[in-house]
């Protein structure tokens, strides 16, 4: 990732986000002014990195959370989101960076002294205590008098819908009930921030939907700041005021759910949030983008003339109709599935691109159709890179050590052996092999993006460098592959 072109410096979320729900939140009114900026943030995560041994799980993460906000940290498993939450809770120390709460550095404050509480993924209820004692655990430690504990336990039990469950053994409860007890056990302590680690992941779909609504309601009633970790993009869109999308230890995008959905900053976000068609395109000039062999009008500006870009089309934004001469592109329906409210179809365009389309009308398989895409439904993104710039070492005049392996190159004369060099390799010039020994180096497929008529794979090589590969072959996430690059395709060898 070292040579990634992405600029993802997370910016504080603009003051307006907070005002939408400010009336519900005690104390939030003062924050709207935006004058004393740093006081409005209850949590400031400042350039945090975390290494476990030689594995980096968080890479320079910064995040600012407003008081009363519902922030969701969203990402695939292994993206570092749980580690980030554990650093907030105090279970892990960051390798670099700091965490501030209400302006005070709390990076090294132990968990039991932090005014936050956590709802754990697998509930983590105390099995030897009943529901009442589980919930009263925090208050009893604080030596609150028994009458008051009694009152508060009953109040939170009512809030989570478990009135009269006081004496029950926690292990006799269903998953959903256990989760409610876990939530009750946390909120009874009136934390300033509630941390939730995939709290609904173990519940079935129906229960999950119900609990989502209840959590949202609870957030409104309590006015507590919620920081919620999930891998479920739909959950994130439903619940959050702000979504933080993470991948490979880095923040990809921070924004309101609608912004994240409509204006993803890179193909990863576009692919991860909702369904999407992601295609290669060329920005001919401002508001004109060429893709699928058609020049479309769009609303994006500020690109270089003829810049290569990624184009995102949401499946519900492509208008589909029976074949006529008004369509911008033509194609044939390949599959059609009824999804309850809409139909989901794949259409192969006459130029061989596969598009995912959702529409209320069904078109039969094999039917010829035409499609229109409106300018504001086309979302254009800068490409993260135009080719692979790979760092390596020149071993001798015809060999380069890079990507954790040895590659033959065309003879180099003007650079002495042993120098650090950079080389360029086009995405389509890399061939992936079934057996690692067939390639100059080995790697692991870590991200797959379908681009309508080919796949764009991210392959993480043995030395940790990511390379992008265009291929028509089907690979799976996690496949171990050999990386083959022909000598003539290793270009622009230069000293650094």
């Amino acid at each position, binding site marked *: 990732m070292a040579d990634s072109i992405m600029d993802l410096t997370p910016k504080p979320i603009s003051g307006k986000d907070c005002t939408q729900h400010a009336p519900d939140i005690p104390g939030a009114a003062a924050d709207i002014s935006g004058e004393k900026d740093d006081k409005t943030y209850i949590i400031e995560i400042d350039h945090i990195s975390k290494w476990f041994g030689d594995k980096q799980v968080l890479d320079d993460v910064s995040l600012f959370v407003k008081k009363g906000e519902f922030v969701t940290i969203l990402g695939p498993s292994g993206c570092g989101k749980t580690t980030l939450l554990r650093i907030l809770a105090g*279970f892990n120390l960051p390798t670099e960076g700091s965490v501030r709460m209400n302006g005070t550095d709390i990076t090294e404050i*132990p968990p039991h002294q932090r005014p936050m509480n956590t709802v*754990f993924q*697998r509930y983590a209820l105390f*099995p030897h205590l009943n529901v009442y004692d589980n919930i009263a655990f925090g208050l009893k*430690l604080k030596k609150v008098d028994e009458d008051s504990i009694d009152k508060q336990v009953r109040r939170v039990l009512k809030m989570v819908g478990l009135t009269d469950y006081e004496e029950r053994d926690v292990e006799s409860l269903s998953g959903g009930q256990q989760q409610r007890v876990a939530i009750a056990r946390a909120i009874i302590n009136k934390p300033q921030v509630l941390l939730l680690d995939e709290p609904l992941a173990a519940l079935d779909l129906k229960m999950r939907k119900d609990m989502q609504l209840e959590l949202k309601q609870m957030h409104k009633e309590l006015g507590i700041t919620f920081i919620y970790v999930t891998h479920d993009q739909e959950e994130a869109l439903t619940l959050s005021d702000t979504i933080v999308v993470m991948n490979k230890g880095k923040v990809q995008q921070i924004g309101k759910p609608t912004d994240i959905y409509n204006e993803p900053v890179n193909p990863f976000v576009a692919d991860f949030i909702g369904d999407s068609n992601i295609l290669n395109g060329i920005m001919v000039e401002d508001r004109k983008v060429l893709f699928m062999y058609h020049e479309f009008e769009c609303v994006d500006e500020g690109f270089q003339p003829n810049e290569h870009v990624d184009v995102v089309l949401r499946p519900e934004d492509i208008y589909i109709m029976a074949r006529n001469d008004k369509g911008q592109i033509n194609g044939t329906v390949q599959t059609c599935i009824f999804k309850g409210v809409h139909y989901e179809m794949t259409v192969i365009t006459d130029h061989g691109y596969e598009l995912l389309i959702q529409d209320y009308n069904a078109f039969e398989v094999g039917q010829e159709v035409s499609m229109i895409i409106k300018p504001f439904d086309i979302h254009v993104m800068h490409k993260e890179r135009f080719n692979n710039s790979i760092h390596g070492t020149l071993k001798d005049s015809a060999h380069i050590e890079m990507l954790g392996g040895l590659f033959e190159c065309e003879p180099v004369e003007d650079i002495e052996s042993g120098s650090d060099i950079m080389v360029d390799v086009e995405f389509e010039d890399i061939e992936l092999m079934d057996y690692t020994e067939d390639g100059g180096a080995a790697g692991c497929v870590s991200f797959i993006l379908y681009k309508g008529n080919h796949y764009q794979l991210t392959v993480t090589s043995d030395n940790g460098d990511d390379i992008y590969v265009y291929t028509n072959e089907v690979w799976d996430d996690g496949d171990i592959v050999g990386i083959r690059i022909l000598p003539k395709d290793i270009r622009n060898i230069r000293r650094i």
Partner: protein
Amino acid sequence: MKKFLAKSYLYILLLVLYAPIAIIILFSFTNSKTIGDWRGFSLDLYANLLSGQAAHSATITQAVINTLVIALIAAAISMLLGSIAAVGIFNIRNRKVRKAIQFANNIPMINPDIITGISLFLLFVSLGISGGYVTVVLAHIAFCTPYVVLSVMPRLTRMNPNIYEAALDLGATPLQAFNKVIIPEIKPGMVSGFILSFTLSIDDFAVTLFTKGSNGLETLSTYIYADARKGGLTPELRCLAAIIFLTVLILLIIINRRSSRFNKEQ
């Protein structure tokens, strides 16, 4: 026929296994000097034993007291050491190191008693500690502790690893979290470990023999051994053997019940 043979094989095996102890128990209920000489049912030997009228009665009583005291102290200390060790081993992050330590923990259990006895004997001699109560208790702690580790470990591995953190999160200090959350979770394992250690200690002969020194300290096992070598077993010892057998049997049943209940819960 085949079925009959298969079945009787099992019964013959059990009979051979249990015949010696059965004979001792049987002959504890008759008043005779030697085994094999049945003189009708009587509880005289039990009466003699309990009222202190048997030959060397005072020594026997002292041996019983020694055995019980040593077993209680050794079991209690083993329970503490073993539980702490189990928590420590469980928390080792490095898998290889953890496996290695668990393996090291298992060695004393498969090591023959006689080797444990001799090595401890040599250790105490080289350290200049003279044999007696202290050395026997230390030796018993040494061979009981691994069993406690072994009975506490499954409780820890079954435990939701987040509950300790949940306690911290709710405001407990690490010590409070350990007392209020970890201890209740592993308590059944600790109790099983205690009972197991207790029976192992009562049961032990070889290690005790090597570590008891020459100051006249006798436990039941060493006393019975010495007594049997001096012109035949004192008849009352048959009763004692029966009582010990029964006690240990009951303790073993308790342990088995506990562990099968634990397995069912899982």
